[in-house]
């Protein structure tokens, strides 16, 4: 218990980052290189802070920011998701970076460059864990069954997806909306946990951090985002003894993962397991032809 109390803030931060990393992984898995959920994270944090000052309860705030972010994300996705690859990444990056600037110039409504402090609502770590579990459940539903297969087809081969009757545009918009909703939720939670929101904490640094979580963990599954969020959040704690060199170490990990494990640590683990299985199968049988199988 002592260890938990001592590191409670880090645990809470990890849980928020898990939702944020999943928000990026959801779109990457569908082949949509969108970073827009970070923008929705910012909007969610500010909307939550403003609503709480108007007396809204925390649960209502979280439901509202999630739904509104999802709807706005869907509407935003319609024109933006037509873009592909780097162009989409650049457009959503611009969206992420413009929002803090607008908020810095929002006067007393947004607290200007200082942001908003003394948010009057909070959320317990237990409730946060529960929210993360619900998020994981919803996202795991998307990854299983026909939706999981459809999103993989969407990412790997759009013509194939179309010929299989997968409504490519609609699935893209939907993944965009889910990503935005999760971004908004993570933002709302972050404001409640740390009782403050500020434009200085949201920028290119946060974008690369969350992207690194999804890449290091692996974009194939929510589990990769969870692993990535945990590792990236706790790495500074574990590497505290090497001081400023930890940034170098972090960069090194990122490069190694991208070079040798393009599907992240989860992908590498799965590859290792399937390669072991293949060796076992190869030892037992040979691939028969169709006729041999029929007889």
């Amino acid at each position: 218990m002592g260890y938990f109390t001592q590191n409670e803030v880090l645990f809470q931060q990890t849980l928020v980052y898990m939702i944020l990393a999943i928000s990026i992984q959801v779109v990457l898995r569908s082949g949509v290189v969108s970073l827009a959920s970070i923008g929705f994270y910012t909007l969610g944090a500010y909307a939550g802070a403003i609503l709480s000052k108007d007396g809204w309860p925390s649960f209502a705030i979280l439901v509202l920011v999630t739904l509104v972010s999802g709807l706005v994300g869907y509407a935003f996705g319609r024109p933006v998701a037509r873009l592909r690859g780097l162009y989409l990444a650049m457009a959503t990056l611009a969206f992420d970076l413009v929002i803090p600037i607008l908020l810095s110039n929002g006067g007393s409504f947004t607290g200007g460059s200082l942001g908003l402090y003394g948010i009057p609502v909070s959320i317990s770590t237990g409730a946060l864990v529960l929210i993360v579990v619900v998020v994981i459940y919803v996202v795991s539903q998307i990854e299983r069954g026909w939706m999981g297969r459809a999103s993989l087809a969407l990412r790997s081969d759009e013509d194939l997806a179309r010929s299989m009757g997968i409504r490519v545009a609609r699935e893209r918009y939907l993944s965009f909306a889910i990503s935005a909703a999760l971004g908004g939720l993570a933002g709302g939670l972050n404001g409640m946990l740390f009782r403050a929101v500020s434009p200085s904490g949201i920028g290119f640094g946060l974008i690369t951090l969350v992207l690194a979580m999804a890449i290091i963990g692996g974009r194939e599954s929510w589990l990769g985002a969870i692993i990535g969020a945990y590792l990236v959040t706790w790495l500074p704690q574990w590497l505290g003894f090497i001081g400023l060199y930890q940034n170098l170490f972090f960069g090194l990990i990122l490069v190694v993962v991208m070079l040798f494990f393009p599907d992240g640590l989860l992908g590498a683990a799965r590859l290792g397991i399937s390669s072991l299985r293949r060796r076992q199968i190869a030892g037992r049988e040979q691939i028969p032809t169709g006729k041999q199988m029929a007889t």
Partner: protein
Amino acid sequence: MTATDEAVSAALLETKGMSVTFGGVKAVVDVSLVLEPGKMYGLVGPNGSGKTTCLNALSRLVPTSAGRLIFNGRDYTRIANTAVASIGIARTFQSIRLLSQLDVLENVQLGADVVGGRKRNLDWWLGRRAARRESAASAKLAAEALERVGISALAKRNPATLSYGMQRRVEVARAIAMQPQLLLLDEPTAGMREDERTELMEVSQSLVADGMTVLVVEHNLRMITSICEHLFVMHFGNLIASGDPHEVMRLPEVQVAYIGHGADVAVR
């Protein structure tokens, strides 16, 4: 009603003056085809003659610049390409397009999911029994399709670990799992051994015997003339011949299209 009118009214698929252009390039020019139910058709032609573009147009992956596409008496020239699967047209591609993240059965389920309609209702989100039943039905359809092409034993394998011929079979199984009325096969036996080709064509013939219509794009003229009831020949985007396979291959314009003047195409 004339004999021709009767044939047209009984047609499963009909194209009327179908054309496809890419910028200034005329890839398919004024092609009119009639495909009747329960028959095997072949589409041949030299490289670059527009065969695959023709299939892409029939499956709406490329837009037609002129003409009409009619399936089961319904004009589908302007429908979304994602709706083609649900009206009963399935296809395979010239290159292998399997997902290495999924096992063989799951790859085939991608086709079977078309039949289930991909419902995303409350049952689905809550993982209820109705959703699980649908998922099981899709797995059953996929397993049946695998059995049909004779590779049930490979259901749990990663497609990337299979031979080229087996991967081709998985692709055909995926298209069969969509339970189409019309199956478009784009060079399904390319890169296969002779015995694998024969086996796959036997599978295609059994599908036709069950009432499916199959249109095969193929380069192996000997094989295509022996299994098809009707052959279409394309050259430079034009349909230059159509009819009984052996008779069509003897036509001078077909001989010229394939190997130039005065030669006999080796299909005997």
